């Protein structure tokens, strides 16, 4: 079990309210990702759930139990930190066993669980090393191992992959996803990387300045972002925003068109512009188009075979059914 409920939760540091009243439901077994730009309060929210910060008001409920005043160690949650927070003076074995040692489990039980965790995380050969002798990915796995052995009701991840290099990040992303599929435990994952959010989450919570902008599955957020912020944050490269007459023609204040929903032609099209930079990724080409009269730059995503040079004239046609419309307040018009 691991259903977490936040009701009217607020957090203030002194006079500054970093989290205005907030409600959120995280269902049992769900992989929930908190995503948002840095300083949006996502880590604070996670720390409130963990109990590392006290809530200023409101209640946090785990499996029907009000844990707002319960100390962190009694909430049955395990957390993986950005810096891994391994105990540097202990071997990997002792690191993983530490929560069980604190709980007073028998040595035999500790050894058994450490072995199980080490096997599932490929750490058996490293059990007698110190964290300083491990690579970043191995340290990350030790931190996860230390969380697993506690058999928690929910896992909390605080930007766990941001200290890893790009290749390793992709690998660990898969491992964590697989772990979730296998264990079916509630996981809350904080990241500023929308790719991580899109690929891993069952449910994404987009935050800005402590406020939940939208909650939904990755594709829901991609297909129907409820406001400009979510539209701009989810998806890579960023959605193009167009204001002015073009938007007014479609009875909107702002139009949002994703780079992948614009067709390119050398002869005809709805819009015309001049290519400034084309970025070739092999599989795709990102074209940055200027002088369209619509926005400073339009980003267009086309297939990797297309080649335009700097200064080429280009014709663009948006896929009408994929154009998002927003009103003056930035909210979606459906």
């Amino acid at each position, binding site marked *: 079990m691991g259903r977490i409920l936040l009701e009217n939760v607020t957090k203030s540091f002194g006079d500054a309210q970093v989290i205005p009243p907030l409600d959120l439901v995280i269902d049992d077994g769900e992989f929930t990702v908190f995503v948002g730009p840095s300083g949006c309060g996502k880590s604070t929210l996670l720390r409130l759930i*963990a*109990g*590392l910060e006290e809530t200023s008001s409101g209640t946090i409920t785990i499996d029907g139990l009000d844990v707002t005043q319960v*100390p*962190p*160690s009694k909430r049955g*949650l*395990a*957390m993986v*930190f*950005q*810096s891994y*927070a*391994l*105990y*540097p*003076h*202990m*071997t990997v074995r*002792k690191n993983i066993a*530490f*929560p069980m040692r*604190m*709980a007073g489990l028998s040595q035999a039980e500790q050894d058994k669980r450490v072995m199980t965790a080490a096997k599932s995380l490929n750490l058996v050969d490293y059990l007698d090393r110190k964290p300083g002798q491990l690579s970043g990915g191995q340290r990350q796995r030790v931190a996860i191992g*230390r969380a697993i052995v*506690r058999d928690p009701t929910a896992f909390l991840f605080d930007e766990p992959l941001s200290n890893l290099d790009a290749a390793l990040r992709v690998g660990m992303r898969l491992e964590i996803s697989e772990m979730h599929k296998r264990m079916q435990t509630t996981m809350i994952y904080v990241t500023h990387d929308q790719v991580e959010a899109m690929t891993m989450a069952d449910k994404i919570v987009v935050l800005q300045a402590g406020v939940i902008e939208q909650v939904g599955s990755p594709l829901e957020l991609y297909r129907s972002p409820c406001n400009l912020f979510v539209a701009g944050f989810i998806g890579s490269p960023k959605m193009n925003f167009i204001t002015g007459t073009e938007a007014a023609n479609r009875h909107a204040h702002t139009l949002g068109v994703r780079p992948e929903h614009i067709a390119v032609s050398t002869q005809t099209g709805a819009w015309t512009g001049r290519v400034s930079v084309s970025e070739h990724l092999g599989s795709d080409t990102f074209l940055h188009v200027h002088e369209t009269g619509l926005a400073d730059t339009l980003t267009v995503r086309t297939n990797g075979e297309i080649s335009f040079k700097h200064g080429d004239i280009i014709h663009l046609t948006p896929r009408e059914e994929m154009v998002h419309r927003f009103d003056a307040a930035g909210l979606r018009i459906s």
Partner: protein
Amino acid sequence: MSNRTLPRLLQTPAVLLLLIWMLIPLSMTLYFSFIRYVLNSLRRPEWTKPSISNWRGFGNYEFVLNNKDFILAIQNSLLIVCSILFFTVIFGILIAVLINKSFPGRGVVRVLLISPFFVMPAVNAVLWINMILDPVLGLQGLAVGGLNDAIEGLRNAPLVGGFFSLWPDFAPISFRATQTSAIAVIIMVTWQWTPFAVLIFMTSLQSEDQQQKEAAILDGAGAWSQFRFLTLPHLSRPIAIVVMIQAIFHLSLYAEIEIVSRGNGNKNLPYLIGEFANNNIGAASATGIFAVILANIVAFFLLRMIGKTLME
């Protein structure tokens, strides 16, 4: 000239200077420790000049070993150094952990805490032995007197009077006596050097990883477990530094010993060397060599002990 010769040539003066700086005093001490060499002798004026013809072999060492004060001096050196190390490290850790939490006026408290370290050793000793530890004029005498007066008053009180009439009169302790002068030295040097330990531990505590502590909190570690399994291992290197530096300094304590008791029943090795050096340079040198050996043994064992107990 190969491209490594020039840097070496340029380094040579510094290296030579350091070598001379170390080797000349050490070899002179060694040399003097094997010859008869006194500052003043009417009977054997030839001994007043250091000369190889006055060779005495291990005679000086034998003389020192047979001196009635030698074993006492070694015991005393060890007692004083180990006690000071023990107390300064314990107090240092406690105070450093205490003032690591933020509270109003922390800056002032820190400066005040460091200030004993800036008192000169001789001044420190004079202040303690005369103004604090003196059985008549010092704070100690006043405190014991006040305690006795309080008990005296309580003897006539109802209910508890019977209990207090069983208490004896307390007598102030004379810290200049043979048996207690080492304790006086330990007290005053501990007071002076605890700030050093606090300073080192405080800076180290500030570099402690807060996420590790949070992880430990989530893992169910209480305040004691956090201290035992995170803070103490984190402090093991600074503790080793404090122990090493202080061992070096306190093996050569002199001013405090001189001022408290003039070495009466409370000599340590440097003080014994000083006494020999009044005339018998040979014996003083031999004692000096013993001191070098002792210092190395102490450093070796202390560092191994700390390494074993704190590193998990």
